[in-house]
């Protein structure tokens, strides 16, 4: 069934600079290895709470983030490690956050599901499914009211599409022609519920018609396809013609969270998708295109490994927030 609905293997032409291609690969690899380390640290009890891995979906965050400027805003979900790293957030501050340390990007208050970085206009990390969409609409409204030529990129899953806030937010953004780019990461499952079992109309891009906006399906396993589609979409959104809905067809290789026994899908289905691993397929393409050598690759792997080791060290070394500061930041301190 998946095979039927999975996008064809043909991928977009390699229309990019070698340097840029290597940057894309590096970012995807960083996310992959970062999360593999997170899983390891979770089993060691260093990371706790909910941990949702993005492994398999790296091409989406990495490809999409290329189309954004530093002034644009990003709103993501609880499965946001990839987005945070692709947005340029330091892996050390992220890892420290998952440790619950005071040097974490949210001072240990948020954990894996609530990464924030005001400076990079990374507005988090929302764990109520659908809850981030209205926030993105509001950020875009603020830009419009202040005549700032910014775009807000809003990432959410296929499961979120069933929530009323998806409908309300797309209608409001379209009605007011706000600069929001809606990026639906369709990984075919809402926890254990398959797309066809939660959407009467499983073609999510097709729902754009209900709001009179453009909607498009994109191969989310192909970082190049994602980048080019996102660039086109961002252009039109920035032009002020209103929001665009992109449906990125992808797949979650790991369990929904660390508690998930994965009773709802077959090993065969997962294997089918593993063949289209965005990191390995892109690596192969770069090698075939002569952009990457095996030597480059192992250098890259070492470089990424070093970055992650440094991040873990930063987390390990980080201090604990004093318990005396428990109530800090519930309200803004008065001058």
């Amino acid at each position, binding site marked *: 069934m998946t095979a039927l609905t999975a996008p064809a293997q043909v991928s977009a032409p390699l229309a990019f600079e070698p340097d840029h291609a290597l940057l894309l690969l590096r970012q995807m690899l960083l996310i992959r290895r970062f999360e593999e380390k997170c899983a390891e640290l979770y089993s060691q009890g260093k990371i706790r709470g909910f941990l949702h891995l993005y492994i398999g979906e790296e091409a989406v965050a990495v490809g999409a983030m290329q189309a954004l400027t530093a002034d644009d*805003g990003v709103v993501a979900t609880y499965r946001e490690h990839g987005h945070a790293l692709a947005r340029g957030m330091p892996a050390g501050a992220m890892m420290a956050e998952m440790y619950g340390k005071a040097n*974490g*990007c*949210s*001072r*240990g*208050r*948020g954990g894996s599901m*609530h990464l*924030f*970085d*005001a400076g990079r206009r990374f*507005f*988090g*990390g*929302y764990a*109520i499914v659908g*809850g981030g*969409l*209205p*926030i*993105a*609409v*509001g*950020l*875009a*409204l*603020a*830009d419009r*009211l*202040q005549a700032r030529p910014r775009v807000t990129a809003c990432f959410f899953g296929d499961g979120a599409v069933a929530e*009323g*806030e998806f409908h*309300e*937010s797309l*209608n*409001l953004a379209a*009605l*007011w022609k706000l600069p929001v780019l809606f990026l639906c990461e369709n990984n075919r499952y809402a926890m254990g519920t398959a797309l066809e079992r939660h959407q009467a109309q499983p073609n999510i891009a097709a729902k754009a018609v209900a709001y009179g906006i453009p909607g498009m399906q994109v191969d989310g396993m192909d970082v190049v396809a994602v980048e080019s589609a996102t660039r086109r979409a961002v252009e039109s959104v920035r032009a002020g013609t209103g929001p665009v809905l992109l449906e990125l067809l992808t797949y979650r290789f790991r369990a929904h969270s660390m508690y998930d026994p994965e009773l709802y899908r077959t090993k065969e289905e997962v294997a089918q998708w593993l063949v289209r691993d965005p990191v390995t397929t892109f690596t192969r393409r770069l090698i075939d295109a002569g952009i990457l050598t095996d030597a480059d690759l192992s250098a890259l792997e070492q470089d990424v490994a070093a970055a992650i080791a440094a991040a873990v060290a930063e987390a390990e070394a980080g201090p604990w927030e004093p318990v005396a500061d428990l109530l*800090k*930041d*519930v*309200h*803004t301190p008065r001058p």
Partner: protein
Amino acid sequence: MTTLSYREAVRSALRDSLRADPRVFLMGEDVGRYGGAYAASKGLLEEFGPERVRDTPLSESTFVGAGIGAALGGMRPIVEVMTVNFSLLALDQIVNNAATLRHMSGGQFSIPLVIRMATGAGRQLAAQHSHSLEVWYAHIPGITALAPATVADARGMLLAALREPDPVVIFEHASLYPMEEEADAHAGPADITHAVVRRRGTDVTVVTYGGSLGKTLAAAERLQVSGISTEVIDLRSLRPLDMETVLASIKKTHRAMIVDEGWRTGSLAAEVSARIMEGAFYDLDAPVARVCSAEVPMPYAKHLEDAALPQPEAIVDAVTALCPRRG
């Protein structure tokens, strides 16, 4: 001082804020063309235009969430949720986003958002349109909850709320909009950190807020006749609660009662009673009493609705029962 209605006071605060600060804008269902369900924003669309006075579709969760996002983006949104009854549809955004974003981000963000909503019963609007759920908002850390009960506060509290760096929810009792009082039409922000003694008395302290203040003051008048001197305290801020003012009064009167239009169980009156227990137990000559709404979905029929709501008669009776016989 001029004679001003509660509705005009809200409108004047909205107008002055829109004039004073370009970051301020108003958003909600029918705030523009219709002029506001209670006409509080009448004329503002004409003066400030559709970019700053924005009619929204019926999408409470999303336009409240958009208010949060706009605040994150540097604006000073005033979101009108037509009534507290519909605010349940936006409660997730208020509890899980507005109230948490600052803390959850380790203090990186502030959400200077003002949410206004009409509240309360008394107009025969039946079970789905007569809620008083202020206590739920007073339960949420990160939120400031205000209940202006006078014309001056209707203006002053809104101006003060707009100066807050964090989310403020303002409850305007729907029965108060036509109420007229002498007030300064140009007054600045009100103090929102203190409760106020609206009537001095020596025998008993009655604590109330919002739409119940008038009923309580009316009851106090009658009680005076039967020789009971009632001190009436208007909480004004429901979160945080200014218990100092309440406890100071009880140190003097040794008796206390709370009048609250909310359903009795889990009411704000319960919290005030518990705090009095904790802060003035040894000053009390009698148990703190509560006059709240009957625990029933609000009936439409007038005689049933009247019976379900706190009324001056019930307040008089309860205070009388609380106080020792007078000669």
